[in-house]
Protein backbone atom coordinates (compact mmCIF):
# COMPACT_ATOMS: atom_id res chain seq x y z
CA UNK A 1 0.00 0.00 0.00
CA UNK A 2 1.17 3.51 -0.81
CA UNK A 3 1.04 6.50 1.48
CA UNK A 4 -1.37 8.13 -0.98
CA UNK A 5 -3.80 5.22 -0.53
CA UNK A 6 -4.05 5.77 3.20
CA UNK A 7 -7.01 7.98 4.16
CA UNK A 8 -5.63 11.17 5.67
CA UNK A 9 -7.11 10.46 9.09
CA UNK A 10 -5.58 6.97 9.06
CA UNK A 11 -2.21 8.44 8.09
CA UNK A 12 -2.47 10.93 10.96
CA UNK A 13 -3.52 8.18 13.37
CA UNK A 14 -0.59 5.94 12.42
CA UNK A 15 1.77 8.88 12.72
CA UNK A 16 0.50 9.78 16.20
CA UNK A 17 0.83 6.18 17.37
CA UNK A 18 4.22 5.51 15.81
CA UNK A 19 2.68 3.00 13.43
CA UNK A 20 3.62 4.69 10.17
CA UNK A 21 6.32 2.57 8.57
CA UNK A 22 7.64 4.29 5.51
CA UNK A 23 9.57 2.20 3.00
CA UNK A 24 12.66 4.10 1.91
CA UNK A 25 14.49 1.30 0.11
CA UNK A 26 16.87 -0.08 1.13
CA UNK A 27 15.55 1.00 4.54
CA UNK A 28 12.30 1.19 6.44
CA UNK A 29 11.65 4.07 8.85
CA UNK A 30 9.08 4.09 11.65
CA UNK A 31 7.73 7.60 12.11
CA UNK A 32 5.92 9.05 15.10
CA UNK A 33 4.80 12.62 15.65
CA UNK A 34 2.22 14.70 17.44
CA UNK A 35 2.80 17.64 15.08
CA UNK A 36 -0.44 17.73 13.09
CA UNK A 37 0.98 19.44 9.99
CA UNK A 38 3.43 16.60 9.48
CA UNK A 39 0.77 14.25 8.13
CA UNK A 40 0.00 16.73 5.35
CA UNK A 41 3.67 17.12 4.40
CA UNK A 42 4.26 13.36 4.44
CA UNK A 43 1.18 12.80 2.28
CA UNK A 44 2.33 15.47 -0.19
CA UNK A 45 5.96 14.42 -0.38
CA UNK A 46 5.82 10.65 0.13
CA UNK A 47 2.51 9.81 -1.55
CA UNK A 48 4.08 7.31 -3.98
CA UNK A 49 6.13 5.55 -1.32
CA UNK A 50 5.01 2.23 0.12
CA UNK A 51 4.04 1.75 3.74
CA UNK A 52 4.75 -1.41 5.71
CA UNK A 53 2.41 -2.91 8.25
CA UNK A 54 2.74 -1.39 11.74
CA UNK A 55 4.23 -4.64 13.09
CA UNK A 56 7.01 -4.87 10.51
CA UNK A 57 10.71 -4.38 11.23
CA UNK A 58 12.02 -0.85 10.83
CA UNK A 59 15.68 0.07 10.46
CA UNK A 60 15.15 3.46 12.04
CA UNK A 61 12.56 4.58 14.58
CA UNK A 62 12.29 8.34 14.56
CA UNK A 63 9.98 10.78 16.24
CA UNK A 64 9.36 14.49 16.14
CA UNK A 65 7.35 15.56 19.16
CA UNK A 66 6.30 18.83 20.65
CA UNK A 67 8.25 19.94 23.66
CA UNK A 68 6.24 20.22 26.89
CA UNK A 69 5.96 23.34 29.03
CA UNK A 70 4.12 26.64 28.88
CA UNK A 71 6.22 27.74 25.97
CA UNK A 72 4.25 25.39 23.78
CA UNK A 73 1.33 27.86 23.90
CA UNK A 74 3.18 30.82 22.42
CA UNK A 75 6.36 29.49 20.81
CA UNK A 76 5.96 25.77 20.25
CA UNK A 77 9.05 23.70 19.68
CA UNK A 78 9.57 20.14 18.61
CA UNK A 79 12.40 17.71 19.07
CA UNK A 80 13.79 14.84 17.04
CA UNK A 81 14.11 11.46 18.74
CA UNK A 82 15.96 8.42 17.49
CA UNK A 83 15.07 5.10 19.13
CA UNK A 84 13.24 7.09 21.83
CA UNK A 85 16.39 9.06 22.67
CA UNK A 86 16.29 12.86 22.20
CA UNK A 87 18.74 13.82 19.50
CA UNK A 88 19.66 17.38 18.57
CA UNK A 89 18.31 20.58 20.10
CA UNK A 90 14.59 21.41 19.87
CA UNK A 91 13.55 23.56 16.91
CA UNK A 92 10.42 25.59 16.14
CA UNK A 93 7.53 23.20 15.57
CA UNK A 94 6.89 24.55 12.08
CA UNK A 95 10.24 23.02 11.12
CA UNK A 96 8.96 19.53 11.90
CA UNK A 97 9.11 18.23 8.34
CA UNK A 98 12.60 19.54 7.55
CA UNK A 99 13.58 18.10 10.94
CA UNK A 100 12.32 14.67 9.90
CA UNK A 101 14.24 14.93 6.65
CA UNK A 102 17.47 16.03 8.32
CA UNK A 103 16.99 13.40 10.98
CA UNK A 104 16.53 10.63 8.43
CA UNK A 105 19.67 11.78 6.64
CA UNK A 106 21.51 11.57 9.92
CA UNK A 107 20.12 8.10 10.64
CA UNK A 108 21.44 6.78 7.35
CA UNK A 109 24.77 8.62 7.49
CA UNK A 110 25.43 7.55 11.07
CA UNK A 111 24.28 3.95 10.89
CA UNK A 112 24.16 2.47 7.38
CA UNK A 113 27.74 1.31 7.26
CA UNK A 114 27.01 -1.61 4.99
CA UNK A 115 27.40 1.10 2.31
CA UNK A 116 30.03 3.67 1.55
CA UNK A 117 27.84 6.70 2.13
CA UNK A 118 28.69 9.83 0.18
CA UNK A 119 27.18 13.28 0.49
CA UNK A 120 26.18 13.51 -3.15
CA UNK A 121 23.23 13.87 -5.45
CA UNK A 122 22.69 10.93 -7.80
CA UNK A 123 20.58 11.00 -10.95
CA UNK A 124 20.33 8.41 -13.70
CA UNK A 125 19.50 8.34 -17.37
CA UNK A 126 19.61 5.33 -19.68
CA UNK A 127 21.13 3.10 -17.03
CA UNK A 128 24.01 5.45 -16.27
CA UNK A 129 24.19 7.56 -13.17
CA UNK A 130 25.81 10.90 -12.51
CA UNK A 131 27.17 11.27 -9.00
CA UNK A 132 27.46 14.86 -7.87
CA UNK A 133 29.44 15.18 -4.65
CA UNK A 134 29.67 18.76 -3.56
CA UNK A 135 29.69 20.93 -0.49
CA UNK A 136 26.69 23.13 0.37
CA UNK A 137 26.41 26.20 -1.84
CA UNK A 138 27.64 24.51 -5.00
CA UNK A 139 24.19 24.37 -6.57
CA UNK A 140 24.06 20.58 -6.32
CA UNK A 141 20.49 20.25 -5.06
CA UNK A 142 19.18 22.93 -7.41
CA UNK A 143 20.79 21.21 -10.37
CA UNK A 144 19.48 17.84 -9.22
CA UNK A 145 15.99 19.26 -8.72
CA UNK A 146 16.03 20.80 -12.19
CA UNK A 147 17.31 17.70 -13.97
CA UNK A 148 14.74 15.38 -12.42
CA UNK A 149 12.10 17.67 -13.92
CA UNK A 150 13.66 16.93 -17.32
CA UNK A 151 13.63 13.16 -17.41
CA UNK A 152 16.56 12.20 -15.18
CA UNK A 153 15.69 9.64 -12.53
CA UNK A 154 16.24 10.75 -8.96
CA UNK A 155 18.15 8.39 -6.73
CA UNK A 156 19.07 10.95 -4.10
CA UNK A 157 19.87 14.60 -3.67
CA UNK A 158 21.88 14.05 -0.47
CA UNK A 159 23.10 10.49 0.07
CA UNK A 160 24.71 8.18 -2.43
CA UNK A 161 24.84 4.65 -1.01
CA UNK A 162 27.64 2.74 -2.73
CA UNK A 163 27.45 -1.03 -2.44
CA UNK A 164 31.16 -1.82 -2.20
CA UNK A 165 30.70 -5.37 -3.48
CA UNK A 166 28.64 -4.68 -6.59
CA UNK A 167 29.72 -1.11 -7.30
CA UNK A 168 26.07 -0.14 -7.68
CA UNK A 169 24.63 2.98 -6.10
CA UNK A 170 21.38 2.96 -4.18
CA UNK A 171 19.23 5.96 -3.41
CA UNK A 172 16.00 6.46 -1.57
CA UNK A 173 14.42 8.90 -4.05
CA UNK A 174 13.37 11.07 -1.13
CA UNK A 175 12.22 14.68 -1.48
CA UNK A 176 14.82 17.18 -2.64
CA UNK A 177 15.73 19.85 -0.13
CA UNK A 178 15.71 23.33 -1.66
CA UNK A 179 17.05 26.36 0.09
CA UNK A 180 16.58 30.08 -0.29
CA UNK A 181 16.87 31.30 -3.90
CA UNK A 182 16.69 27.71 -5.19
CA UNK A 183 13.01 27.55 -4.23
CA UNK A 184 12.03 30.33 -6.63
CA UNK A 185 14.45 29.02 -9.25
CA UNK A 186 12.70 25.64 -9.33
CA UNK A 187 9.26 27.25 -9.23
CA UNK A 188 10.20 29.27 -12.31
CA UNK A 189 11.80 26.31 -14.03
CA UNK A 190 9.04 23.79 -13.28
CA UNK A 191 5.82 25.55 -12.19
CA UNK A 192 4.06 22.19 -11.98
CA UNK A 193 6.51 20.84 -9.38
CA UNK A 194 4.99 20.11 -5.96
CA UNK A 195 6.73 21.57 -2.92
CA UNK A 196 6.03 21.97 0.75
CA UNK A 197 5.29 25.48 1.94
CA UNK A 198 8.63 27.26 2.47
CA UNK A 199 9.79 27.15 6.09
CA UNK A 200 11.72 30.31 6.99
CA UNK A 201 14.43 30.87 9.59
CA UNK A 202 15.87 27.38 9.72
CA UNK A 203 19.60 26.88 10.29
CA UNK A 204 19.85 26.59 6.51
CA UNK A 205 17.70 29.63 5.78
CA UNK A 206 14.33 29.18 4.12
CA UNK A 207 13.75 25.55 3.20
CA UNK A 208 11.18 23.81 1.02
CA UNK A 209 11.05 20.14 0.05
CA UNK A 210 10.37 19.12 -3.54
CA UNK A 211 8.21 16.08 -4.24
CA UNK A 212 10.24 13.37 -6.03
CA UNK A 213 8.93 12.35 -9.45
CA UNK A 214 6.58 9.37 -9.29
CA UNK A 215 8.59 7.56 -11.97
CA UNK A 216 11.69 7.78 -9.75
CA UNK A 217 9.85 6.51 -6.70
CA UNK A 218 8.42 3.56 -8.62
CA UNK A 219 12.00 2.53 -9.52
CA UNK A 220 13.41 3.22 -6.08
CA UNK A 221 14.54 -0.38 -5.63
CA UNK A 222 16.72 -0.24 -8.77
CA UNK A 223 20.31 0.72 -8.05
CA UNK A 224 22.37 2.32 -10.79
CA UNK A 225 25.93 2.14 -12.02
CA UNK A 226 27.77 5.44 -12.06
CA UNK A 227 29.16 6.68 -15.35
CA UNK A 228 30.02 10.24 -14.38
CA UNK A 229 31.30 12.05 -11.35
CA UNK A 230 30.27 15.66 -11.78
CA UNK A 231 31.36 18.48 -9.51
CA UNK A 232 28.85 21.27 -10.05
CA UNK A 233 29.36 24.92 -9.30
CA UNK A 234 26.79 27.63 -9.81
CA UNK A 235 27.82 31.02 -11.10
CA UNK A 236 25.09 33.50 -11.94
CA UNK A 237 24.79 34.01 -15.67
CA UNK A 238 27.61 31.62 -16.55
CA UNK A 239 27.24 29.44 -19.65
CA UNK A 240 27.06 25.70 -19.00
CA UNK A 241 30.53 24.22 -19.36
CA UNK A 242 31.76 20.72 -18.63
CA UNK A 243 35.50 20.45 -18.18
CA UNK A 244 37.69 17.47 -17.32
CA UNK A 245 38.52 16.97 -13.68
CA UNK A 246 41.47 14.89 -12.56
CA UNK A 247 40.47 11.46 -11.30
CA UNK A 248 42.79 11.73 -8.32
CA UNK A 249 41.07 14.96 -7.27
CA UNK A 250 37.65 13.45 -7.88
CA UNK A 251 38.72 10.58 -5.63
CA UNK A 252 39.66 13.00 -2.87
CA UNK A 253 36.36 14.86 -3.21
CA UNK A 254 34.44 11.59 -2.87
CA UNK A 255 36.48 10.63 0.19
CA UNK A 256 36.02 14.05 1.77
CA UNK A 257 32.30 14.04 1.09
CA UNK A 258 31.83 10.52 2.46
CA UNK A 259 30.39 10.10 5.93
CA UNK A 260 32.10 6.78 6.58
CA UNK A 261 35.07 6.50 4.20
CA UNK A 262 37.49 6.45 7.14
CA UNK A 263 35.52 3.71 8.84
CA UNK A 264 35.89 1.36 5.87
CA UNK A 265 39.68 1.66 5.68
CA UNK A 266 41.37 -0.08 2.75
CA UNK A 267 38.03 -1.45 1.55
CA UNK A 268 36.69 2.09 1.24
CA UNK A 269 39.83 3.15 -0.62
CA UNK A 270 39.50 0.28 -3.10
CA UNK A 271 35.76 0.83 -3.57
CA UNK A 272 36.23 4.54 -4.17
CA UNK A 273 38.99 3.71 -6.61
CA UNK A 274 36.72 1.35 -8.55
CA UNK A 275 34.00 4.01 -8.64
CA UNK A 276 36.47 6.52 -10.10
CA UNK A 277 37.74 3.86 -12.55
CA UNK A 278 34.37 3.50 -14.18
CA UNK A 279 33.48 7.20 -14.37
CA UNK A 280 34.29 10.21 -16.48
CA UNK A 281 35.19 12.92 -13.97
CA UNK A 282 33.99 16.39 -14.84
CA UNK A 283 33.49 19.83 -13.45
CA UNK A 284 30.27 21.54 -14.42
CA UNK A 285 29.91 25.27 -14.20
CA UNK A 286 26.44 26.61 -14.84
CA UNK A 287 24.34 29.71 -14.43
CA UNK A 288 20.85 28.60 -15.41
CA UNK A 289 18.76 25.46 -15.30
CA UNK A 290 17.55 25.50 -18.92
CA UNK A 291 21.13 25.61 -20.17
CA UNK A 292 22.19 23.03 -17.61
CA UNK A 293 19.44 20.62 -18.65
CA UNK A 294 20.45 20.94 -22.29
CA UNK A 295 24.10 20.37 -21.43
CA UNK A 296 23.25 17.20 -19.47
CA UNK A 297 21.12 16.05 -22.38
CA UNK A 298 24.15 16.35 -24.63
CA UNK A 299 26.31 14.60 -22.05
CA UNK A 300 23.95 11.63 -21.92
CA UNK A 301 23.72 11.47 -25.71
CA UNK A 302 27.45 11.85 -26.34
CA UNK A 303 28.79 9.03 -24.17
CA UNK A 304 27.38 5.71 -25.26
CA UNK A 305 27.53 2.91 -22.69
Amino acid at each position, binding site marked *: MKVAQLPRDELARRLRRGELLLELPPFVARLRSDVASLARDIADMYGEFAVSSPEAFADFSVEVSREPGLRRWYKPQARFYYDDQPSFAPLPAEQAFPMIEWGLNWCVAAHAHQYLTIHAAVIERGGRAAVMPAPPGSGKSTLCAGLIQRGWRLLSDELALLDMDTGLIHGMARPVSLKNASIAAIRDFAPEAVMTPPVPDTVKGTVALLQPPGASVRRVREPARAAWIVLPSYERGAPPVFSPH*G*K*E*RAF*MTLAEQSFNYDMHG*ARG*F*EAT*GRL*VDQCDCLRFNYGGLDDAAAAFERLAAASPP
Partner: protein
Amino acid sequence: MNIWSCAGRERFLVRSWSGEEGVVYDKLSGDTHLLEPLALELLQRLGTGAPRSARALLDDLGNLLEDAGSGSALAAIEQGLESMRRAGLVVASAA
Protein backbone atom coordinates in the same frame (compact mmCIF):
# COMPACT_ATOMS: atom_id res chain seq x y z
CA MET B 1 72.38 15.11 5.57
CA ASN B 2 69.28 12.95 5.80
CA ILE B 3 68.81 9.52 4.37
CA TRP B 4 65.25 8.98 3.29
CA SER B 5 63.31 5.76 3.27
CA CYS B 6 59.74 4.68 2.70
CA ALA B 7 57.82 4.34 5.97
CA GLY B 8 56.71 0.83 5.03
CA ARG B 9 56.64 -0.96 1.72
CA GLU B 10 53.53 -3.00 2.39
CA ARG B 11 51.82 -0.18 4.18
CA PHE B 12 50.52 1.90 1.29
CA LEU B 13 47.90 1.43 -1.39
CA VAL B 14 48.45 3.69 -4.37
CA ARG B 15 46.16 4.60 -7.25
CA SER B 16 47.05 6.89 -10.10
CA TRP B 17 44.99 7.41 -13.21
CA SER B 18 46.89 10.27 -14.77
CA GLY B 19 50.31 8.75 -14.21
CA GLU B 20 51.25 12.01 -12.52
CA GLU B 21 49.26 12.70 -9.36
CA GLY B 22 48.28 9.82 -7.13
CA VAL B 23 46.19 8.94 -4.11
CA VAL B 24 47.87 6.97 -1.36
CA TYR B 25 46.11 5.10 1.42
CA ASP B 26 48.13 4.51 4.57
CA LYS B 27 46.94 1.26 6.17
CA LEU B 28 48.57 2.18 9.46
CA SER B 29 47.07 5.64 9.97
CA GLY B 30 43.96 5.21 7.84
CA ASP B 31 44.76 8.50 6.11
CA THR B 32 44.46 9.09 2.38
CA HIS B 33 46.82 11.54 0.73
CA LEU B 34 46.78 13.26 -2.62
CA LEU B 35 50.33 13.38 -3.89
CA GLU B 36 51.68 15.79 -6.46
CA PRO B 37 53.65 14.18 -9.31
CA LEU B 38 57.09 14.68 -7.81
CA ALA B 39 56.07 13.39 -4.39
CA LEU B 40 54.43 10.33 -5.94
CA GLU B 41 57.57 9.60 -7.94
CA LEU B 42 59.73 9.96 -4.84
CA LEU B 43 57.53 7.70 -2.77
CA GLN B 44 57.48 5.03 -5.45
CA ARG B 45 61.26 5.15 -5.85
CA LEU B 46 61.80 4.92 -2.11
CA GLY B 47 59.24 2.15 -1.93
CA THR B 48 61.08 -0.03 -4.41
CA GLY B 49 64.67 0.96 -3.85
CA ALA B 50 67.21 1.48 -1.09
CA PRO B 51 67.07 4.43 1.31
CA ARG B 52 68.95 7.38 -0.10
CA SER B 53 69.62 11.07 0.20
CA ALA B 54 67.74 13.84 -1.57
CA ARG B 55 70.84 14.36 -3.71
CA ALA B 56 70.84 10.69 -4.72
CA LEU B 57 67.16 10.93 -5.56
CA LEU B 58 67.90 13.96 -7.69
CA ASP B 59 70.55 11.96 -9.53
CA ASP B 60 68.02 9.14 -10.06
CA LEU B 61 65.46 11.56 -11.39
CA GLY B 62 67.91 13.53 -13.46
CA ASN B 63 66.50 12.43 -16.77
CA LEU B 64 62.95 13.30 -15.70
CA LEU B 65 63.63 16.76 -14.33
CA GLU B 66 64.23 19.51 -16.85
CA ASP B 67 66.20 21.59 -14.38
CA ALA B 68 67.94 18.76 -12.57
CA GLY B 69 71.19 20.69 -12.45
CA SER B 70 69.69 23.62 -10.62
CA GLY B 71 69.33 24.15 -6.92
CA SER B 72 65.60 24.52 -7.30
CA ALA B 73 65.17 20.86 -8.31
CA LEU B 74 66.97 19.70 -5.19
CA ALA B 75 64.95 22.14 -3.10
CA ALA B 76 61.73 20.80 -4.61
CA ILE B 77 62.76 17.23 -3.78
CA GLU B 78 63.65 18.17 -0.22
CA GLN B 79 60.37 20.01 0.15
CA GLY B 80 58.43 17.03 -1.20
CA LEU B 81 60.24 14.64 1.14
CA GLU B 82 59.68 16.87 4.14
CA SER B 83 56.01 17.16 3.29
CA MET B 84 55.74 13.36 3.09
CA ARG B 85 57.69 12.99 6.34
CA ARG B 86 55.10 15.14 8.10
CA ALA B 87 52.39 12.95 6.60
CA GLY B 88 54.12 9.81 7.88
CA LEU B 89 54.85 8.43 4.42
CA VAL B 90 58.64 8.59 4.54
CA VAL B 91 61.22 8.54 7.30
CA ALA B 92 64.41 10.57 7.58
CA SER B 93 67.48 9.37 9.40
CA ALA B 94 70.81 11.07 9.82
CA ALA B 95 73.53 9.81 7.47
